[in-house]
């Protein structure tokens, strides 16, 4: 358990303690309405996440990657962005994508393996979840670079986990971003495990944030379950980026309570009861903010119940929309391979179409 105790942890930026005490000044930057937005967003996402795991068990969606425990990291970072900012999520960051404007039913569609699940609302710049590890980090360098070239005031944020920091693209992305001082935010959620491999087997460096020094960029280590600290850190990274001060590497220390995906059994590689209970009881992002809000008189049981009811209804409405969404037509597999369809795709599409018609159903 020592890897998770405060005593051996290197320096970390924390604002809100697990007991719900504010220990750093927030300078009026986080007002009551933002606090409530943070809290409600986390509550919505946790409800969504639990619902999704259940839906997978019922066979209503495919394999699913849960993020429960990481709500503060995803909500705090996404709320610090502006509408026009570019977001490059992984398959575990649909929470962040939702907060940045992705619609809930689209997220359901994605996990139902529907083609239309990777489309984001018009005008938004939320890319499809990256399935290969760390590859999207260099894209976030590129979009940020283009924004910088054109003088547009946007940042690009790339989400990734601790495992990604072993990949070559992690290093190439940090190096390019450092060289070109691109307005990129590299947001690592260090949840302790890359599927089953713990961080101490992943890396000899004690922290991920310290790697920033190697590329001469700004690096911050933050309590990823402290939404105030995450929000302030990302907000500062955005300001730095827009001021031309270049990229920031943020390491948010957090933990996924559940499995890597619903196809994974974490009991094999970690002591579920011990570790999950430790994190749930001592570090939970939602509990600690609720403690603070309760003490300040900003939130009570009644509000909690109302909010949960509202979110359950909202999620159910989106689920209904996703389940009622027209199924992917098999012929859609031929669309959008190229801007213009070439002869071989046209013919193969016809071939499948004939097979489908012979079968009497499409």
């Amino acid at each position, binding site marked *: 358990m020592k890897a998770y105790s405060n005593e051996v942890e290197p320096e970390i930026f924390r604002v809100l303690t697990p007991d719900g005490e504010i220990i750093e000044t927030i300078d009026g930057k986080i007002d009551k309405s933002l606090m409530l937005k943070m809290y409600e967003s986390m509550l919505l996402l946790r409800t969504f996440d639990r619902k999704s795991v259940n839906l997978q068990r019922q066979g209503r969606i495919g394999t699913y990657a849960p993020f429960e425990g990481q709500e503060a990291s995803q909500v705090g970072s996404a709320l610090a962005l502006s509408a026009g900012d*570019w977001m490059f999520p992984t398959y575990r960051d649909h929470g962040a994508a939702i907060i940045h404007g992705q619609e809930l039913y689209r997220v359901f569609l994605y996990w139902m393996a529907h*083609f*239309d699940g*990777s*489309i*984001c609302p018009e005008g938004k710049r939320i*890319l*499809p979840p990256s*399935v*290969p590890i760390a*590859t*999207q*980090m*260099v*894209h*976030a*360098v*590129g*979009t*940020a*670079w*283009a*924004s910088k*070239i*054109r003088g547009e005031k946007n940042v*690009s944020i790339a989400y990734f986990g601790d495992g990604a920091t072993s990949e*070559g*693209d992690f290093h*190439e*992305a940090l*190096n*390019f971003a450092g*060289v070109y001082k691109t307005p990129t935010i590299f947001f690592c959620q260090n949840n302790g495990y890359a599927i089953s491999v713990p961080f101490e087997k992943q890396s000899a460096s004690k922290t991920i944030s310290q790697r920033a020094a190697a590329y001469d960029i700004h690096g911050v280590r933050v309590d990823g379950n402290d939404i105030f600290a995450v929000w302030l850190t990302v907000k500062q990274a955005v300001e730095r980026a827009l001021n031309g001060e270049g990229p920031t590497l943020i390491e948010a220390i957090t933990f996924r309570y559940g499995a890597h995906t619903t196809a994974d059994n974490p009991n094999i590689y970690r002591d579920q009861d011990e570790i999950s209970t430790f994190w749930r009881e001592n570090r939970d992002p939602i509990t600690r903010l609720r403690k603070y809000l309760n003490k300040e008189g900003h939130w009570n049981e009644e509000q909690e119940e109302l909010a949960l009811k509202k979110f359950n209804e909202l999620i159910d409405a989106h689920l209904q929309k996703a389940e009622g969404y027209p199924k992917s037509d098999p012929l859609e597999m031929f*669309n*959008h*391979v*190229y*801007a*213009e369809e*070439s*002869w*071989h795709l046209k013919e193969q599409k016809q071939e499948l179409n004939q097979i489908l018609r012979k079968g009497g159903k499409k």
Partner: protein
Amino acid sequence: MGKNLTMLQAITEAMDQMLGHDDRVMIMGEDIGVNGGVFRSTEGLYEKYGKDRVIDTPLAESGIIGSAIGLALNGMLPIVEIQFLAFIYPGFEQLVSHAARMRYRTRGQFGVPLLIRTPYGAGIRGPELHSESVETFFAHTPGLKVVAPSNPYDAKGLLISALEDPDPVIFLEPTKLYRAFKEEVPDEMYRIPIGQAKVVQEGSDLTIYAWGAMLREALNAAKKIEAEKGWKCEVVDLRTLYPLDRDTIVQSIKKTGRALIVHEAHKTAGLGAEIISIINDEALIYLKAPIKRVTGFDVPVPPFTIEDHYLPTVDRVKQGIVETLSF
């Protein structure tokens, strides 16, 4: 109006005109700025357009291609130079997992109009891994387009089309032909459509299909065989390797009834096999002989002291013509 240019000069001119024509165009790669490229294909462009448009990048192919994907997503038109085709492997994942799939994954919402130029092929006495011809890797990837010019005129016209294409294009430049000969190249920005092969020599007895540097071997062999035996070969330059121009391939075989495919890439699963399949599908009854392939062998491209024995030669091509016509 036009000028006599080498393929390299034609490529440089195409990029020069595109940089001047469209602010979104930028060139990035290793040694392409101050140095003007290891083959000098970007010579003078750094001085003319500056370090922000002709960019010497860190030495990292995944970083180059990946960041170019981001640039393309966000409205730029990056031209990436990868110094040699076999050096593209660290960036391969970016090409196949992202550049090729972005339009598909986003149902047309985001495209990647990215152009990747890279010298390829043997015959330049290069060190290890400087001479590969692995076009099949890319021609097997839905979402990419693969282009390989064989002369200065086509190189300029195809390059401009490739840059204007809304999808990612791998532009394979036959290193051996960079300075091999000059040809009149028009001054204006003309375009040669991607996806169209060209009959470069009419003939009635046999069709030779080739591309890149092998087109010269094909033409030379056709000339010699005509002088020696009076046989007239039709020579087809594929120019685009993916998607292939089936109509031109099939039209020619219907006319001649015999075919020889010449490529320097390894034989197994090389594009020759695909061309044979197309002919089988579309024109089997026109065939008077089995289709033969003269290709590089299924070995790594060997050291330059013996690379000539790896490459199809005029003699090997001639032998292939004789065997096909004597069947």
